């Protein structure tokens, strides 16, 4: 199953990440500006690194995070892969799902995205979240898992 290709997340997720990081960058820039005003002399000593970091955050980071994540649903198993430096590859068989959440934050609603969370009885990985799905996809996956549970227990 390590060879099965992963489904990438919805492309709008990358855009949403970029917007999220933009908000973080604005806050950082505000703090940097305050620091520049507070510390006399050395104009740019704080700004320059913060601007460089913000640019990296805006240009490189969203695509890296987007590319690092993926999921697959083959063989009635939900597989969630995430992490740039620290990779984590989690598999939850449908037969072990306790209940299913489809959540939408304010930003996610703007982009018609949703986060699918499955809860298991395990203490470790009690809930496994998959962000960045199109809302319709998330709902469809929920119905799939629910149908599988229903069929297995009969």
């Amino acid at each position, binding site marked *: *199953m*390590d060879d099965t290709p992963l489904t990438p997340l919805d492309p709008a997720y990358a855009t949403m990440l970029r917007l999220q990081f933009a908000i973080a960058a604005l806050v950082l820039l505000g703090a940097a500006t305050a620091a520049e005003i507070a510390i006399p002399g050395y104009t740019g000593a704080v700004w320059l690194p913060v601007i460089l970091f913000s640019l990296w955050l805006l240009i490189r980071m969203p695509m890296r995070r987007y590319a690092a994540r993926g999921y697959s649903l083959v*063989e*009635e*198993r939900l597989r969630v892969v995430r992490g740039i*430096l*620290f*990779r*984590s*590859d*989690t*598999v*939850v*068989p449908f*037969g*072990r*799902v*306790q*209940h*299913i*959440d*489809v*959540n*939408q*934050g*304010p930003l*996610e*609603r703007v982009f018609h995205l949703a986060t699918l969370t499955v*809860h*298991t*009885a*395990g*203490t*470790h*990985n*009690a*809930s*496994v979240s998959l962000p960045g799905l199109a809302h319709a996809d998330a709902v469809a996956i*929920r119905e799939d898992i*629910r149908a599988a*549970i*229903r069929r*297995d*227990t*009969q």
Partner: protein
Amino acid sequence: MTAIQPAIAMDAPQRTHPRTFAVKAATMLTQLVIPIGVASVTILDDGDLGDLAVYFLPFVLLVIAANFAVAYLQWTRLTYAVRENDIRVESGLLSRAARSIPYERIQDVSLEQKLLPRLFGLVEAKFETGAGGGDDLKLAYLAEEEGDRLRELIRARRDGRSIAAELAEAPTEEASETLFAMPPRRVFTFGLFEFSLAAVAVLGGLAQQLEFLLPFELWDLDGWQERLAGPGQWLSGLGPLAKAAGIAIAIATLAWVGVTTGVVRTALREWDFRLERTEKGLRRRRGLLTRTDLVMPVHRVQALKLTTGFLRRRFGWYGLSVVSLASDKASSNHEAAPFAQIGEIVPIAAATGFALPPEGLDWKRRSPRASIDSALIEGSILLGVSALVFVFSPYAWNGLLPLVPGAIVALRQYYLYRFDRHALSGRFLYARHGWLAPRMMIGSRVKLQSVELAQGPLARRRGYADLRFGLAGGSFEIEGMELEDAQAWRQAVLESLSSTDFSEISGAAPDMEQSGA
């Protein structure tokens, strides 16, 4: 089943009871009264009552009104629907959350009435699913009749299925059979191994702190010498020998305190320990002054843990505890046999449906690269400390001190590489881990919830991985496996997992029968 109960199919989304809002408002007011009271006392104390109240009162009213408005909007946006196959709850003002719970996963519905809701005739319904992390769904608040209706409906849904399942596997076990018992002699031996370092430390600390209460200097060895010498004075002539005797006496006293504390504490806890097999599961009774009686349902056992200690391992003593479903958290201590020889543990393990590792298993080691990397990382941190001390301390030779823990850390990693083992049998997983107090986890290939393969940046380059299993009520993790092993294990376990459904391994149905009776 749907044909019999057409009324429950596809109810329209409903809101919780309108009086919910009244309860929330009342709760909110009582929560606000104390802060406002405190605030008004501190603020209005300064005189000028009239002026301040003019500014203060509208502000307070505004806060209350805003809270009410939010609570009202939240209430209008929270709906639940009793559908054909699941219960669906949607909520949220800005963020929307939709949760779906299939009936098959609901173990029971508990109704709770706190004081305020009770005054308004409302209940809080909680759907227990056995999800980890206490993340059960709650509906607050419903009318009492509505709560009862929901509970009856869900029990009816479950029972149609569970009665048939129970008849199929009717329990045919003897009334009770003693699996393991500890006579006083065994408890005493156990106590000797439970030597309490903590008691020694506390006594030492107390002696240091309360020294001023004693009529003499505790650590003044010359003083001891005089006292020991007594009127004869002959002992003081012995000089260093008497000092050595003093130290020996002090150590012996501390050791005696440690051993006695261990024995007494163990006797109080483990006196007349007996583990029996009954129809409901494993029944454990123990204790001298407070006797506890605990039943561990066998079908709820998720894994076994075999523990030992640095010293007791030399004498072949082991402890066995069971890992049980998360909902048993109230009685977290599940020791099935705290101090036993392997021969005694085998039948207990068999009674829980597990087995100790058989001969001829293919035991795999930890990846040597994982051990080397860990040793290098841990060692280099201490080497850094060492370098700092060397440069900045006036006593440069102190820089050698951090090297001692560095060497211990490296030795530990070598030890882990030598003795950590894991193996996969047809039905079980075995993982042995640890240095001074090694333990072995015995997991079942079907009683796991999820599988996670995790790799840090180093691990990815060097081809090893950590494998973490979702286990209800415990943790099961194997660190530093070879990547191919980890992948093969994951594949094998997932295939076993897919062959069973959670409802077959949780034994939820018989339990609900008991709690309902």
